[in-house]
């Protein structure tokens, strides 16, 4: 799973969001490190829809435009949990190898 897809799925973990909402949430989650352009966002969204990890939730009118909301599917939730576990395990290994885990426990 790419970094962008991971952040998009994480942005949808709390509930459905529309395109711009996802961009803002990813920006916040990544502390400004991942700033999705719209072309990149929809490149990720269309893959996730095709893979069955997200699906359209509803459409809402806003200032004369229709905002389409997306939500995680059951598969998407599972894939996100699996990826989060993998990343956490990797992070634990890195911290151990850098000697940070022991230092933290001591501190």
């Amino acid at each position, binding site marked *: 799973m*790419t970094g962008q897809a991971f952040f998009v799925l994480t942005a949808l973990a709390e509930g459905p969001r*529309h*395109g*711009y909402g996802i*961009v803002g949430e990813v920006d916040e989650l990544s502390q400004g490190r991942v700033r999705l*352009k*719209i*072309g*990149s*966002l*929809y*490149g990720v*969204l*269309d*893959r996730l*829809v*095709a893979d069955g990890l997200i*699906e*359209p*939730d*509803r*459409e809402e009118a*806003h*200032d*004369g*435009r*229709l*905002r*389409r*909301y997306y939500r995680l599917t059951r598969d998407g939730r599972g894939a996100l949990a699996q990826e989060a576990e993998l990343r956490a395990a990797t992070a634990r290994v890195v911290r151990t190898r850098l000697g940070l885990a022991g230092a933290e426990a001591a501190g």
Partner: protein
Amino acid sequence: MTGGMSGDLERRYRRVLRLLPGYYREQWEEDMVAAFLDTWLTGDPQADAYISQAAGPGLAEIASVVSLAGRLYLGGAGTPRRYFAWGQAVRRAVLALLLLHAMQALNVLVLTTWSRQLLGLQALTVSPLGGSSAGTWTTVLYVASFAWIAIFVTLALGHYRPAWVLAALASIIDLVALVQAQLAGRVLTPYGSWAAWVLLSLAPVLAMAAFHRDAPPTAGRPWLLALPLGYLVVFGPMLALEAAGHFWLPDIPGLCCILVALACLVRAPGAWSGRAAGSGVWSLALILLAADAAAYRIVSLIDRHDPHLFQVSMVELFVLVAAAAVVAPDAARAQAPAPAPPPHPQPG
């Protein structure tokens, strides 16, 4: 929806979105436009009117759409058949061009080793440790030429990103060498040399964009086998003829034309066997390679004033065009309209 406060801004963004294939725009355009406008508009009519007049999609935004368009037109799994066929054809054409590079590099390697063994010469005229800048540069050029073997193998094994980085580096080194030689007045055939760089080096590097995340895995083994076999079949006879002396050998543009023409003829029975629509990906790849080889042949003639070479080149071009025409109908079938893509999933 182009009215209201967002009119001009929306129009500018929709113009950019025209880069995307129609089927994709049908599914995603309204959504993309709404998200794009959300990133700009504030809800304050005065501010929005100004923004709509003054703002537009920035370079990064346009680049993201261009990148998406590239991935969709050179499609991978899940894209309509026509775009998938183009994607596969470009991927195969790139592998074929890299195979040629790798065979040429192998040839240099063989000749260098051979000359060292037979004549007791050093492969490189200077020691890599020797230190003169010319010597170091020569070493870099040797390494860059041999790198094409690694690039081809890396790509055939499915390591797309490293292959692209290596190919870009090798191509840049080739460019620097060409510019340097041209500035020093050592390029006897500038058109041919530039055509070689653009069509054989730069073009495959750019076309390697087709090896994206959605591209199906490359069947590595046949391509890897093609390197030693291709070398033996193509360069083996050429070396033998060269050693025998007094025999006409094609130059590199001519060799490209002959190889592509032969590949078209080998493909011909399959192309005419009347298989299902959309099966002619190999034929489409060969048409792309034929266009590349023909362009190289034609441009390389501009600075060669040899009537005999001109006549031979015309024959090569004629044979190439005739052979390409044999597989052209099959290549067209590869782009046959596909069944409509599945409708955009509706909110549920």
